[in-house]
C-alpha cells in the first residue's frame, strides 16, 4: 500500500503494509535512525516522536494510523543548530550511554511546548514514561529546567 506522510516538514511516499509500526518506517525506510527501538511494547519511551506536536510511541503507531505531521529528533535540531533542549542536554552532560535520550528529549519538548516553567513534580509526571537504565534522571530534570529558563528568556 502507498502512504504519504510528512516527517520533519518533508513529504515522503512509502509503499509498505499499513500495519508496519511508524518506528520501522522511520528507521528502516526513511533512514531516520535517531528514533530508537527499546522494548517494542510501549513500556520504555525510547521510540518517542511527535504527531502534530503530541508525544506518542512510534512502536505502537501503525503506518495506517499516522495522523498529522511527524517530528523526530532529527527535526528538533542539527549538530550545527542545536535546539534549546539539545543545548541544555550538552551543557548538563545528560547522556551516559545515550540510547534513551532522543526519546527523553522528544518527551521533554512536548512538556515544554505547553509549560515553559515546569515544577519538579510536573517534570516527573511528564517524564515518568521514559526509562533510562543509566539513571540520568537527575540530569534530565536539570537540563529541562535550564532549557525552560532559556525559553523564558532568562
Amino acid at each position, binding site marked *: 500500500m502507498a502512504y504519504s506522510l510528512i516527517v520533519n516538514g518533508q513529504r515522503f511516499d512509502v509503499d509498505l503494509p499499513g*500495519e508496519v509500526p511508524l518506528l520501522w518506517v522511520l528507521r528502516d525506510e526513511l533512514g531516520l535512525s535517531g528514533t530508537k527501538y527499546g522494548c517494542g511494547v*510501549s513500556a520504555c*519511551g525510547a521510540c518517542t516522536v511527535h504527531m502534530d506536536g503530541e508525544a*506518542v*510511541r512510534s512502536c505502537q503507531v*501503525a503506518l*495506517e494510523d499516522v495522523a498529522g505531521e511527524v517530528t523526530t529528533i532529527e527535526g528538533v535540531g542539527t549538530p550545527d543548530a542545536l535546539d534549546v533542549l539539545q543545548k541544555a542536554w550538552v551543557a548538563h552532560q545528560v547522556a551516559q550511554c545515550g540510547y534513551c535520550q532522543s526519546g527523553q528529549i522528544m*518527551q521533554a519538548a512536548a512538556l515544554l511546548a505547553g509549560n515553559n516553567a515546569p515544577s519538579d513534580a510536573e517534570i516527573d*509526571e511528564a517524564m515518568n514514561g521514559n526509562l533510562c537504565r543509566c539513571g540520568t534522571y537527575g540530569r534530565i530534570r536539570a537540563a529541562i529546567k535550564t532549557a525552560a529558563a532559556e525559553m523564558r528568556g532568562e
Partner: protein
Amino acid sequence: MTYFAPDTLDDALAHLDTTGMSIVAGGTDFFPAMGVAPQAILDVSRIKGLRGITLDNAGWRMGAATTWTDVINADLPAAFDGLKQAAREVGSQQIQNTGTIAGNLVNASPAADGVPPLLTLDAQVEVASARGVRVMPLSEFITGVRQTALRAGEIVTAILIPPLPDHVRAAFSKLGSRKYLVISTAMVAAVIGYDAQGRIDHARMAVGACSPVAQRLSALEADLIGTAPENILVNATHLTPLAPINDVRGSSEYRLDAVAELIRRTITGAST
C-alpha cells in the same frame, strides 16, 4: 493482514459483520499483546463522532475513542475528579495520549485504572452492531478477567454517565510498588456527597485489582450514609465482594488491609 480505518460507524459495522477482525483504538494494550499478527485490524480511532465528551439532559456521553488525555483536559464537574486522577495513572502521558476510555474497558484487565471510577459514576456502556444499539451497566459489561459482554459484530460506541448531584466530589487512590508506570496492587474510587451537617448523604465506592472484575461495595456505601468522615469504620463484611489473589504484587491479606486504608484515604481525598 488488512488494516481498515473507516471514517463512519456504518462502514465499520458493515466490515465487522463480514470478516473476522480485531478492533483497535489506541492500540496501547493491543499491539504489545499481539504476538502473531491477526488476519485483519479494524481501527476505530478515525470514526467521526466516536471521540469527545458531550453533555445533554440524559447526562454525559464519552465517545469510545476519547483518549485519557482528552478526559484529563475536559471541563468536567468535581464528580469526575476521581476519573481524572485515574486517567493520570494509565501508563505514561504517551499512553494517555493514544489509549482510549473504551479500550480500557474492552481490554477487561482486573487492574484497569478506569473501571473503579466509572463504576462510582454509574457508567453505562453503549454498543452498536449492524443489528442496532444496546446499552448495559458497566458492571454487567465486564464479565470476567479479559472477558466482556461484547458480542461478535459489536463495537463499543460510548460510555454514558447519568446526571450527578451538584454537591458530590470524587477521588481515586492507586496503590503500586512505585509512584509511576505501575500496575495496581489495589485501587479505590469514591464519589461522596455531604449534607449541611457534614454527614455523608451520597456514597459510591468501588475497588479494583482485588477481584476478577472491579466491584462496587454496596454494604459499605449503605453504612456510610449519615456518617461523618472521621467516624468511618471499614469491616470485613464491607469487603466481602472482594476476592484478592496472591501474586507478585501482594498477598490477598495485604490487599484487604491496604484496601481498608485506601478507602479511608480516598473518602478523605474526596472531602477536601
